[in-house]
């Protein structure tokens, strides 16, 4: 324990290992939150079920590889399709409801998915989860194909960098996805399709009165969000080398909302910046040393992050990249 009341070592921040960990998690959250941005920021549908889409994506990928013997690279698009279909299935009845009821349905659905995964032990391993034992090289795991690709990338990188960061390939894959998603979403947002979404956010009845099939657009918005959820689910599974029900608790969705609020509504690049900021804060506060027990410090981390969020909201309620005027006029 430090003799000083508050000591803060900056050493960690100069360490690439620290940053690669933060950036992997931040990138995963950026992917999830981009879907939320499309739903909440641009379509006006409050989706509390992103963690559920991550779980459906992750589990179906792993199950397709392990149980159906599908190749990893085929399992990815298949799991994406399953997750999108799942999103449409959930959306069909619930998107006809008022926004707040829809929010509750998505939250409940995500919990149903998690609890089902916890109990369908035959398929999902229940509370043991689907995990890859590093020692047992002979045993197949869902991420074998990824691991061999990752190793060959690292082997190539070793030509320039003696001891490369093992997370580097995953980091590249995740942030490439974030970049492509931001560019793609930014493009479609500027088209007539994106305009209809914004009209729905502003006033769904007005959009219907002008001949727009609003349910269809909301379903598309949700399906794209499910797609991004599935991708984030893959990345999380590859990062942790396990798929466990506890990794898909509602808190994941709420952290994603934290990212959204930090970055600002109706801004895609805000999501990326918000994700980096939130996870730098969450992980960086690990190094705050206080003259109290470690458990208390761990709990205090969230309090610190909370205070930072409150201060930010007080001075910049629209988030870092949100448009204040749109926020004020929106209501």
């Amino acid at each position: 324990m430090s003799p000083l009341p508050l000591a803060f070592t900056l050493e960690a921040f100069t360490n690439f290992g620290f940053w690669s960990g933060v950036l992997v998690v931040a990138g995963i959250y950026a992917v999830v939150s981009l879907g939320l941005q499309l739903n909440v920021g641009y379509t006006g549908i409050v989706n509390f079920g992103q963690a559920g889409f991550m779980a459906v994506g992750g589990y179906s990928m792993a199950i397709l590889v392990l149980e159906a013997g599908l190749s990893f690279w085929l399992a990815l698009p298949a799991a994406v399709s399953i997750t999108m279909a799942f999103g449409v299935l959930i959306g069909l009845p619930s998107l006809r409801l008022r926004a707040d009821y829809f929010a509750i349905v998505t939250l409940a659905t995500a919990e149903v998915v998690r609890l089902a995964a916890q109990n369908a032990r035959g398929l999902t391993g229940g509370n043991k989860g689907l995990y890859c034992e590093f020692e047992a090289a002979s045993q197949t795991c869902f991420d074998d194909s990824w691991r061999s690709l990752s190793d060959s990338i690292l082997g190539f990188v070793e030509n320039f960098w003696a001891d490369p960061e093992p997370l580097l390939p995953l980091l590249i894959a995740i942030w490439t996805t974030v970049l492509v998603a931001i560019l793609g979403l930014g493009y479609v947002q500027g088209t007539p399709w994106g305009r209809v979404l914004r009209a729905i956010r502003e006033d769904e009845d007005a959009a219907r009165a002008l001949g727009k099939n609003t349910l269809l657009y909301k379903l598309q918005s949700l399906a794209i969000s499910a797609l991004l959820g599935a991708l984030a689910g893959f990345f999380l599974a590859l990062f942790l080398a396990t798929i466990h029900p506890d990794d898909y608790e509602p808190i994941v969705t709420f952290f994603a909302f934290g990212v959204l609020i930090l970055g600002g509504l109706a801004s895609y690049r805000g999501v990326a910046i918000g994700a980096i900021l939130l996870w730098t804060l969450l992980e960086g506060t690990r190094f705050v040393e206080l003259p109290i027990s470690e458990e208390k410090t761990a709990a205090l981390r969230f309090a610190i992050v909370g205070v930072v969020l409150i201060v930010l909201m007080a001075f910049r309620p629209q988030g870092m990249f949100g448009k204040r005027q749109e926020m004020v006029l929106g209501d």
Partner: protein
Amino acid sequence: MATEADRGGALLDVEGVVKRFGGIRAVDGASFGVAAGSIVALIGPNGAGKTTLFNAITGFQRADRGSVRLAGEEVLGLPAYAVARRGMVRTFQITRALAAMPVVDNMMLAAPAQPGERFRNLLLHPRAVRGREREVREEAIELLEVFGLRDLAGDYAGTLSGGQRKLLELARALMAQPKLLLLDEPMAGINPTLGRRLLDHMQRLRRERGMTFLFVEHDMDVVMGHSDRVIVMAAGRVIAEGEPRQVREDPAVVDAYLGGAA
């Protein structure tokens, strides 16, 4: 099609529309026709069922019974967006400007036949999407010019005054190129100058484009001076229909306004 001929080429033919809320019959068998190219006022005391009738015939609320034909085609039971696409576009009593969107985007949203509204086309036919988008923008700017809103094209619609919003809503509805426009209290809450401009637009659109209007209005001077025909509702039914002069002298109408229910 027989009824259409009977009514002298009615563009809109409403028959026996019933809309109940629990035990209350908000619209209780309303029947009337609107001839193509006419301006028709719908009047009646508060609670007569005018707005509910609008909602029922445009698909915003499901009618319990009846028939609504637009140019001979049944539209009752269709979802609201499909009714609008068939050419019957409505506005709302309380304006529904899309506040956090620019004025010009409000207008462009309403344009029909936009390939860029289909997600698939964004990837497969980006050129067609861009081409139509240019056209739509030009149309939108032209129409804003007509309504004296050209200078506000880039502003958020939420920054417009109440009267400007009413104008925007009318202009936006016109972008959809409707056959029939249903206006719910277009003059409510706007100053007389803007109100006059709105009425002038209506008259001119009828003259130049043969457009048809059905509007709810409380101001009797406006009703008497600007409509070809007047439909009077009370307690969910149509109690009188005819030229403004006729209707004004109808005892049933006087009774509905001054006495109890008809």
